């Protein structure tokens, strides 16, 4: 029998607020342990939470970007459980009245478009970080009470590939909406995957397991593949799948079950009496909508209509928010959208792909790229030279100016000098001159080539061509 995998994702994304969700501590990454903490996020006796307004604005923005309905009335609840990373022994989260419900996202995967339903998006606080050492467990509460949104999807994905594409698309949307920096290496984006299998054609769902805390797309892919195989082989052996919480162990590349005792949790959710309800007026929601940064669909339309980019170029740029942001930054100093798009999509992408790097890892800034394109535009260097300079920039992180002058690449645009060289070439190649004058247009090509050779390619071929013609027609 053939089995189909059914996947739903819960995605935790950290919001890019300056301060935490219930206290004024900084959200800056990389601080020394337990220095961005206060009585509130340490859960000290008597301390009380106050909700960060920006966090509410951001979750509404995320909800709008993911086509959700925004609740006019929501509230914060307490989720009660004991764990050393949770200083109050409850997490402030949302239970029955989340800020956003009923959205969707279209993704491209397995060569087709799919729609993934979004059940809800709720606001909650993060927990602290445990550091395991042989002598005991250490806790850093800097991350405690960082603002998180949890995006819960419908079980609409049917392959690990789809799940990864969905996760990437969510990341892209959150980046475009500017609500999260989504830095995976900093834990700003984490996935929980709900996985079950069923025979193809079956309408009912199998028993699902939940794989917690996957922190990269690769892990997501590997964990789902592994879990699919595991469940299928269990079913084939006639064993029953148990509903349980699992953890992907990256070092051993396998899934480990958390103690079953942990599964028997009864979180005893109830409305947090320390926090008051949030009532969002339609006017507030419209205000957030009107201040929304441009979303990919909108940008794509603008690129095609105003910048006259091809559908393909517009698609490539808007499918990657960092690339898109880089492109728009280039345009700030170099206002030739079509040329810039070509350089970004073709030349830059080729370099990135070759070395398996991300746009945000580029060793140079968008303004450097703009500078390079200006140099080509002005004729200082040729387009062909430009590609070489870009490769050098990519390699060394040096500015285009630096590279051009260091390698003496500057095109000879001094007409007087070019004319001198042209005269020499004409004098040394009488046969070609005669051919041209006899009507053999092609002969000019050889002459241009001779000038370029004499200048070691530093001349602008266009200019050389013009100079030679003028002289030959004299």
């Amino acid at each position, binding site marked *: 029998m053939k089995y189909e995998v059914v996947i739903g994702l819960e995605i935790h994304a950290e919001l890019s607020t300056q301060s935490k969700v219930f206290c004024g501590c900084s959200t800056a990454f990389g601080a020394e342990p337990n220095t961005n903490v206060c*009585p509130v996020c*340490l*859960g*000290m*006796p*008597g*301390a*009380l*939470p*106050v*909700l960060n307004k920006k966090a509410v604005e951001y979750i509404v923005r995320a909800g709008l970007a993911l086509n959700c309905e925004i609740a006019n009335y929501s509230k914060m609840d*307490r989720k*009660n459980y*004991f764990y*050393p990373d949770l*200083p*109050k*022994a*409850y997490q402030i989260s949302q239970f029955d009245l989340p800020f956003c419900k009923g959205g969707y996202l279209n993704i491209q995967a397995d060569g087709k478009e799919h729609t993934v339903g979004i059940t809800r998006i709720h606001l909650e606080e993060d927990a602290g970080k445990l550091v395991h050492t042989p002598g005991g*467990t250490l*806790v850093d*509460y800097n991350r405690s009470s960082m603002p998180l949104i949890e995006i819960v999807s419908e079980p609409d994905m049917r392959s690990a590939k789809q799940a990864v594409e969905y996760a990437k698309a969510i990341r892209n949307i959150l980046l475009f909406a500017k609500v999260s920096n989504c830095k995976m290496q900093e834990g700003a984006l984490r996935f929980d995957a709900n996985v079950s299998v069923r025979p193809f054609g079956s309408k009912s769902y199998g028993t699902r397991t939940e794989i917690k805390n996957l922190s990269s797309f690769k892990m997501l892919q590997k964990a789902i593949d592994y879990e699919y195989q595991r469940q299928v082989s269990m079913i084939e052996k006639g064993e029953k799948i148990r509903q349980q919480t699992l953890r992907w162990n990256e070092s051993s590349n396998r899934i480990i079950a958390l103690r079953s005792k942990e599964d028997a949790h*009864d979180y*005893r*959710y*109830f409305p947090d*009496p*320390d*926090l*008051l309800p949030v009532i969002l007026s339609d006017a507030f929601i419209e205000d957030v909508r009107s201040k929304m940064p441009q979303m990919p669909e909108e940008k794509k339309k603008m690129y095609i209509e105003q910048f006259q980019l091809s559908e393909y170029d517009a698609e490539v740029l808007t499918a990657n928010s960092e690339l898109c942001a880089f492109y728009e930054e280039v345009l700030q100093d170099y206002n030739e959208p079509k040329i810039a798009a070509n350089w970004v999509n073709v030349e830059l992408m080729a370099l990135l792909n070759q070395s398996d790097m991300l746009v945000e890892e580029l060793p140079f800034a968008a303004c450097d790229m703009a500078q390079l394109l200006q140099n080509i535009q002005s004729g200082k260097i040729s387009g062909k030279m430009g590609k070489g300079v870009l490769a050098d920039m990519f390699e060394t992180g040096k500015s285009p100016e630096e590279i051009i002058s260091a390698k003496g690449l500057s095109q000879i645009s001094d007409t007087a000098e070019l004319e001198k060289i042209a005269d020499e070439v004409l004098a040394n190649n009488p046969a070609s001159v005669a051919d041209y004058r006899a009507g053999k247009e092609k002969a000019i090509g050889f002459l241009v080539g001779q000038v370029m050779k004499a200048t070691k390619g530093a001349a602008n071929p266009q200019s050389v061509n013009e100079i030679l013609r003028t002289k030959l027609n004299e």
Partner: protein
Amino acid sequence: MRLCDMPLYQLSAMLDEKSISAKEIAQDVMKRIGEANATVGGYITILDEKEIMESAQKTDERIAAGARRSKIDGIPYALKDNMCTKGIRTTCSSKLLENFVPVYNATVYEHLINAGGVLVGKADMDEFAMGSANENSALSFTRNPWDTKKVAGGSSGGSSATVASGQAVFSLGSDTGGSIRLPASFCGITGFKPTYSAVPRYGVIAFASSLDQVGPLTKDIRDTAIVLDEIVKYDDKDSTSAKIATNYAQNLNNNIKGMRIGVDASLVEATDEDTKAAVLTAIEKFKEMGCKIVDLSFNHNEIMVAAYYIISSAEASSNLARFDGMTYGVRREGENVIDTYVNTRSWGFGPEVKRRIMMGTFVLSSGYYDAYYKKALQDRTLIKHNFDAAFELCDCVLSPTTIFTAYDAGKKLEHPTDAYMSDVFTPMANIAGLPAASIPCGFAKNGMPIGLQLIGNSYQEQTLLNMAYAYQQETDFHLQRPKMTGEGEKDEV
């Protein structure tokens, strides 16, 4: 009368007149603590004498410079030990917090620091404010100054007994279901629970967040108004804090003619003979002063008490989960983390606290939430509605504060719910978030004080203060002082 037995407003006036110094007041209070601490008790932590005297000295310097900060500048006071005081241990009377020294101040304490009050010590209480006799303290003891064989009432028993015995001029307590009013009634002083949201809860260790409210315990309603003026303030660190403009002391007046007082006769009937007689006499007194009595029927009283126990236990079970020995407090190590949690909490909490945690866990647990917790919230909404309707008919509600007067310490109750049944008149103000006061209205035949409860509509603190003020102008119950051991004289009034 000794300075330590005088009300705040009098001492304050004397300080302004420079007829006494703050140091003299502090000295007399310290002396009284020495006399009463072994018999009445009431404190968990008493500050160093040097520290107290320095604080009083600063007031005297301000007075000399003509810069007295407020009417409580220079007045010695006590704080219930559930209010965080930076650098001064704050225990909630629990073994778990025996060594806890906060690194931050409760907002109410900040206000009293700014007003120039002289903190004397941290008052004893029932562990985590759970109890009504102050017999659930794990770290200290408190007895009734009128008869030290009897209980002081709880949970703010220390806050009440210290004021009644002259070990503090006033104190702050907290009231979740009557914890200010009950001990005030038992100890013959004035206790006031403000409207929920009036006084900042930041830094006050929570019992039940939606019910807790801090308020003053004083010897005179004028003192109450003075203290309220300092602590009823908006706090941006407390989401449930309201913005209210106050000037209670200034606006205090005894013209209560025409005020309508709601009375549910069945509540008065439910009390012991002495209490009933005293309350009926008080009602007559109010009539004499020109008030109208309106008949009310609180047929929701039993539901109300049940709803109170469900909501308060549910919130407590969650609020007290943080006492797990991980980041502060005492830890009792086990084999692993889970054992450590269990060892710490099983060792650290007293039986009453454990009962409430278990009850709270039950009413929130899956399968029971709707039948108990949610239903209690519904009933709470209903009770609030009933009060709204009652306040269409009257300006305040009058009842006894307690069913009986202070009883013998160490009395064993057969069922824990018997204790809950004994304080049935006070939780309604918390459930509906209303301001309520208990004022002395007489003495039982055995000499123990009796309290009268007045409940007002939301944010109508001034109405209650005026009613109580008018009453205290006409009566002298609040002027009586218990005879303190070691003193030969009977205090004159």
